[in-house]
């Protein structure tokens, strides 16, 4: 019996994979939002509303510009998450300027097993139904 491709099944799988990509990117953006929305446990500097982060933590929320720029958007056939129209502090936290210490938020999130767990769970929930 020769094998013939089922175009309907192919379209169904691709549509489901696109939904899973969307769910994973939105879950990753939600993860970033809730980790960038809390004060840190470091120093309390005058002039800043919240306690700053200690080294090794996600950066604390101060002005909220980085938090507001976190989003997940479709890009071609993929879904991208991260900081869109990134404010300067998104770059400055990742690569420190002289006299400052880095608070890597994106590279820390990409290495975070909790983020991986949540993204895999969100994508699996889409594929399961």
């Amino acid at each position, binding site marked *: 019996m020769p094998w013939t491709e089922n175009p309907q099944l192919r379209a169904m799988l691709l549509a489901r994979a696109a939904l899973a990509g969307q769910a994973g990117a939105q879950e990753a953006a939600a993860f970033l939002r809730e980790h960038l929305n809390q004060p840190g446990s470091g120093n309390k500097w005058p002039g800043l509303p919240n306690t700053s982060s200690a080294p090794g933590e996600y950066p604390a929320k101060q002005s909220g510009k980085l938090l507001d720029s976190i989003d997940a958007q479709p890009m071609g056939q993929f879904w991208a998450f991260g900081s869109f129209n990134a404010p300067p502090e998104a*770059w400055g936290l990742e690569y420190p300027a002289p*006299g400052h210490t880095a608070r890597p938020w994106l590279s820390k999130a990409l290495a975070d097993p909790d983020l991986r767990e949540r993204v895999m769970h969100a994508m699996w929930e889409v594929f399961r139904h």
Partner: protein
Amino acid sequence: MGGVQTLTVDQLLYSLGLVLNKDPAGNYLSNAPPNPLPGRPYAITQGMNGSSEALLHGGAQLRRTQVLISLFGFTPDAAGFQSCGIVLAHLRARAREVDRLATYPRITECQAADESPVMRDVATNQHYASIRYVLTYLQGAST
């Protein structure tokens, strides 16, 4: 350890002519800027313990950690711009030579990850850049 010759991140930075911070006992402690600041290029490293892991036979794990290397103190002219880019290129090309990291058991691989372009700081009037290393280490090996 892995081979006959070993190389740490600090030794790599020192061999490229960058000034590193020392504690009062004279040991290199590169997670802070040198005090006082030298008039030459200097480097600061900042570790970050992520732990994406892969399970091997026998229960050992391959885990990853990141080291962010920041290069500061290059002169604000074109020579400083070029020098910073050259040091950055050497760090990117020689990342695989690194096979030791303090307090980590066994470094099996060191890869150069993302890096920033050479930037100029207006406040302190200098060129600076950063590069990140991703080091894979073997955790829980029996031998």
